[in-house]
């Protein structure tokens, strides 16, 4: 049966972080309106940061998102250190990578097991899955806790960690604390392999899009904190050039601004983008395992992002083990970052995609301007493009099935709506 007229409206999108709605309208077999509506209340972080001290964004911007606070902390400290002409290396740089691994593990596993898997299996929630698959859900919880434990050891608590400062950490972990992570990580590795196999066996709706994948690319590492901003279609810029290449658009149905690349259009950030741009930097173990579970080096079906998240989690576990095993406490847990007038930029890889910060500070370290471009604002036009394409190709589905699949397709992006709301100084007004 082909539906000539469809009106899908989901007023409260479940299993996403923050408040959004979906609206899809089809008239006479043509998609006439597609909207991912974002009604999350604005909180005006960029305005609140003006006049604050340059040491404060590491704590303040964490409050933008309870699911990816580390991403905000890392983009903030790297941007401000750059403004002050300081680069952090050695063991502190390694600890920052480990901290980010912890966040990827906790956020990816939460999304895989609790927010996205229910769509593939026809459950309302991860807790409901537990009724039928208790062992699997228990091992997912244990795996998630391993990520929390890493952030706990390095940051003091899993949400809004307190131990992150400009130049490094207030206190470096002891050898014993780092060693305590080792056994859980080894266990987590086994669980993660099992989780990947489980998700690889799901039925994936067919959707192929020719995305422009945008992510960081570092010369020798799968990216967390450092690298150039690249795409699979030839973009290759420094973070300081990003705003010259991106356009932000304020539309009526969203308190998040939509991002586009100048002359290039909408683009895709997140696990699939990192995967496509950095596949060669993964271990041969992970590359071979990906082939075994049916994931290509460039994966254009967004529904398969759930498996790629699992593979990235595996990488984060391996990277954590490497850092834990090689750890020697640094003589000092931070380098000094004296204030100087200037501008600094940074992009880092939040679990759900590239997160850009810019700060302008004066010679006393007071913030004059701040700019934040979160991943979901960048993905919002891409999410709408996927929805349009999916609806056009699947009008034969009944109303309920089509609606469920549309919601699932939004969740492919692990959208973080609290993050995407309330940012961005507008550069271009297209109205």
């Amino acid at each position, binding site marked *: 049966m082909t539906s000539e007229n469809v009106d899908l409206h989901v007023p409260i999108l479940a299993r996403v972080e923050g*408040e959004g709605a979906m609206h899809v309208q089809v008239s006479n077999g043509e998609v006439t309106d597609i909207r991912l509506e974002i009604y999350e209340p604005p909180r005006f972080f960029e305005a609140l940061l003006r006049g604050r001290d340059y040491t404060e964004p590491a704590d303040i911007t964490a*409050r933008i998102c*309870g699911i990816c606070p580390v991403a905000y902390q890392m983009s903030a400290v790297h941007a401000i250190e750059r403004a002050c002409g300081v680069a952090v290396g050695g063991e502190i740089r390694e600890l920052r990578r480990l901290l980010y691994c912890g966040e990827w593990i906790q956020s990816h596993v939460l999304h895989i097991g609790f927010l996205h898997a229910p769509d593939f299996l026809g459950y309302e929630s991860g807790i409901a899955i537990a009724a039928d698959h208790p062992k699997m859900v228990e091992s997912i919880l244990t795996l998630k806790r391993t990520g929390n434990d890493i952030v706990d050891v390095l940051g*003091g608590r899993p949400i809004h960690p307190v131990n992150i400062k400009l130049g490094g950490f207030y206190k470096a972990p002891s050898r014993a604390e780092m060693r305590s992570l080792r056994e859980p990580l080894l266990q987590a590795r086994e669980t993660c392999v099992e989780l990947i196999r489980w998700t690889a066996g799901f039925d994936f709706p067919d959707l192929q899009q020719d995305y422009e994948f945008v992510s960081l690319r570092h010369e020798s590492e799968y990216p967390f904190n450092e690298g150039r901003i690249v795409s699979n279609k030839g973009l290759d810029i420094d973070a300081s050039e990003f705003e010259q290449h991106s356009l932000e658009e304020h539309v009526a149905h969203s308190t998040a601004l939509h991002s586009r690349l100048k002359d290039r259009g909408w683009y895709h950030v997140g696990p699939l983008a990192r995967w496509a741009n950095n596949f060669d930097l993964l271990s041969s173990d992970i590359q071979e395992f990906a082939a075994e579970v049916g994931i290509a080096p460039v994966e254009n079906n967004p529904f398969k992002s759930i498996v790629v998240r699992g593979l990235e989690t595996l990488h984060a576990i391996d990277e954590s083990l490497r850092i834990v095993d090689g750890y020697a406490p640094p003589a000092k847990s931070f380098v000094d970052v004296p204030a100087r007038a200037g501008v600094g930029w940074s992009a880092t890889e939040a679990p759900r995609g590239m997160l850009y910060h810019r700060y302008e500070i004066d010679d006393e370290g007071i913030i004059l301007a701040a700019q934040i471009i979160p991943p979901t604002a960048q993905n919002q036009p891409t999410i709408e493009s996927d929805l349009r394409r999916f609806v056009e190709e699947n009008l034969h589905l009944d109303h309920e099935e089509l609606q469920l699949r549309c919601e699932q397709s939004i969740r492919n992006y692990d959208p973080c709506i*609290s993050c995407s709301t309330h940012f961005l100084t507008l550069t271009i007004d297209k109205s």
Partner: protein
Amino acid sequence: MTIAEPRNPTLAVWKFASCDGCQLSLLDCEDEILALAGALDIAYFPEASSGMVEGPYDVSLVEGSITTPHDLERIKKVREESGVVITIGACATSGGIQALRNGADVSEFIGIVYAHPEYISTLEMSTPIADHIEVDFELRGCPIDKGQLIETIVAHLAGRPPRIPTTSVCMECKARGNPCVMVAHGTPCLGPVTQGGCRALCPTYNRGCYGCFGPTESPNTEALAEQFVKLGMRDDAIARSFRTYAAWAEPFKQEAERRDPS
């Protein structure tokens, strides 16, 4: 005659202006969440489940502050539908970091962030839930402590008051045997005027408390601020230290105004 089966109490989790971190704390209870889901029915928790059962609910957890006209109406409905309302976290309890807008020109803020101010619907102030409805219990923290969350839920299920200490962070430092960061290395610390619950987290990590659990009972903020002056802090920096995650809590607000009346 049939006897109704005893039913589990129902739980609802609501979000207002916030980062989601406090409700995430519930999903971060990896060791307890399945047991908890067995003891009560999670009837409404959109972040975790697409199954949304209509009210009334026995217990409502409310995250976030009130910042829009729509949310002002919504919170009243939450009250009507809930047996017990528990606010979770600094946003719900004192307006949160977004209360830094209070007293500023919000239209200017909108102009800094958005191109079309006419699309944006917001109130002048970010205010705590208790400014608008009766609240049965307030759980502090940015974010809340998950142990305190479990204790609060369990206590309400058992019909007893939650055992949540209202003493200062200093007590927790003493209990942990931490040297005082102010005395030992001259680091400004809000611990003496801040409610505990974090197990003195920041001092344990060699930094001063930044007040994310909000003011303790009868805090002597003025004396502490004088101590900060002796440590070399300027008034504008002292004002900023009180203007963070509990900026709109009365004692912190007053001390910030005393130091920086602008």
